[in-house]
């Protein structure tokens, strides 16, 4: 059995407490019977690099990503690799993807990229692919099967025929609350690829799936949603231990559906309100979720944060380290068979800033 890495260990080992406590990353440790097989990886997401003009980019969003990259480089033990969860750019412009790639290039590790809608809807991921590779793929690492899906596709009519220009298509999809947007989906072609990919995998092998949108349905109006979530879940159901880690929502969310644990991650750019705080929304925020603290707008990096994750014997323990708030740990509770907050799960343990309205 491996010893789980605590945040304190990381900070001690990095020896740069102040920096380490304030950077948005995720670190993952996979713990197995054979400790030589244990490893960690980091996860960074939703930086929304935004071009203003010329050589100017939105400073606030740049700072979020630069700090995340610096922190991941300081991690000790070193993560085996890094995952980037999507929405590196704001409007999928070459300038934004280039600037984002430039900042990411400071990372000292192999990095796997997930496609976000803000990376995609200008040229349908063409330039992104030149920089980062295929839109969906899988890989094996020390006994775990990892899958990266492009979950932000939508129907052909919307994608190819609805909009007069690519720029407008990108703008329409970029507005989270824009009624002209369209629901995300993985799509038939990719689901068939996934089915074939999983045929080769032993059912006892832990699966970790990365997507940009949640592979569960939370709120359609903001695309906290994947239209064919149930069909994707059905393909994952035969496996004993499955974890889905997704970006897009810019907030703490977690859930358990059958054998599948779900975790949303923080953005490096800005936090989003919970759908429950929109007075006119019908939503399905997982009952399990104890929300992140409401952001203080007077602290620009508040409610952006980093998380490291222990994947202990195939189950994820997610540690959210938040800039101006107390850290949060969402650990898999074996007895209850679901992820639970280690301090705040019980209703009467919650604190006033966790109330969203």
């Amino acid at each position: 059995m491996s010893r789980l890495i605590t945040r304190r260990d990381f900070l001690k080992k990095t020896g740069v407490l102040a920096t380490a406590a304030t950077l948005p990353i995720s670190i993952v440790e996979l713990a197995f019977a054979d400790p030589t097989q244990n490893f960690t990886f980091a996860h960074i997401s939703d930086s929304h690099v935004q071009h203003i003009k010329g050589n100017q980019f939105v400073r606030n969003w740049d700072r979020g990503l630069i700090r995340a990259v610096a922190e991941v480089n300081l991690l000790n033990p070193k993560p085996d690799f890094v995952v980037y969860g999507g929405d590196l750019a704001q409007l999928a412009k070459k300038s934004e993807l280039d600037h984002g790639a430039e900042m990411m290039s400071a990372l000292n590790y192999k990095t796997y990229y997930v496609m976000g809608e803000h990376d995609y809807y200008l040229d349908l991921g063409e330039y992104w692919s030149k920089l980062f590779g295929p839109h969906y793929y899988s890989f094996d690492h020390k006994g775990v099967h990892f899958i990266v899906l492009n979950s932000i596709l939508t129907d052909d009519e919307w994608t190819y025929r609805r909009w007069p220009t690519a720029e407008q298509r990108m703008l329409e999809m970029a507005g989270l609350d824009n009624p002209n947007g369209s629901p995300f989906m993985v799509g038939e072609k990719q689901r068939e690829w996934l089915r074939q990919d999983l045929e080769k995998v032993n059912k006892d092998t832990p699966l970790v799936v990365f997507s940009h949108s949640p592979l569960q349905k939370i709120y359609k109006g903001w695309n906290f949603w994947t239209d064919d979530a149930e069909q994707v879940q059905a393909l994952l159901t035969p496996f004993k231990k499955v974890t889905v880690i997704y970006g897009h929502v810019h907030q703490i969310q977690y859930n358990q559906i059958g054998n599948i644990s779900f975790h949303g991650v923080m953005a490096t750019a800005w936090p989003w309100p919970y759908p429950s705080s929109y007075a006119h929304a019908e939503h399905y925020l997982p009952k399990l979720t104890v929300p992140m603290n409401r952001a203080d707008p007077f602290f620009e990096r508040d409610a952006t944060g980093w998380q490291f994750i222990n994947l202990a014997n195939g189950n994820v323990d997610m540690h959210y380290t938040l800039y101006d708030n107390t850290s949060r740990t969402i650990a898999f509770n074996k007895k209850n068979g679901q992820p639970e907050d280690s301090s705040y799960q019980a209703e009467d343990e919650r604190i006033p800033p966790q109330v969203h309205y």
Partner: protein
Amino acid sequence: MERINKFGLIFLFMTVAGAAATAIADEFSQQDLTRWESEYLSVVKQGRQAFTDPELGSNGVTCAQCHPNAANTHPETYPKFQKQLGRVVPIWEMINWCIRNPLEGKSLEASDPRLVALQAYIYYERRGVKLDPGKH
């Protein structure tokens, strides 16, 4: 004689005024209601435009980027104490705060039509929620 004349004039004036008016002051019609609502909604629409306008600030960032459907603007809680400003403020001071900071723009005058429109939109998205001034 003079007094009668004056009285007569006043009487005449009142008669003319009464005939010119199409309705009595405190009565309004369905047509009025429809017009007033559409006036309001047209300003709500301008507010939504300002809320999604990359030109409102200086860096292309929009309000809707962080506040989809104006969520987390909590207009029903204003005026309220903002500890960082150290006093009780109306909502438009917080709007200006967000314009100056995340949007890196310039504060708007309280009477600026864009600031009025932003409030019209923010309140509209929050319609039906009970007033709770001072709440955090």
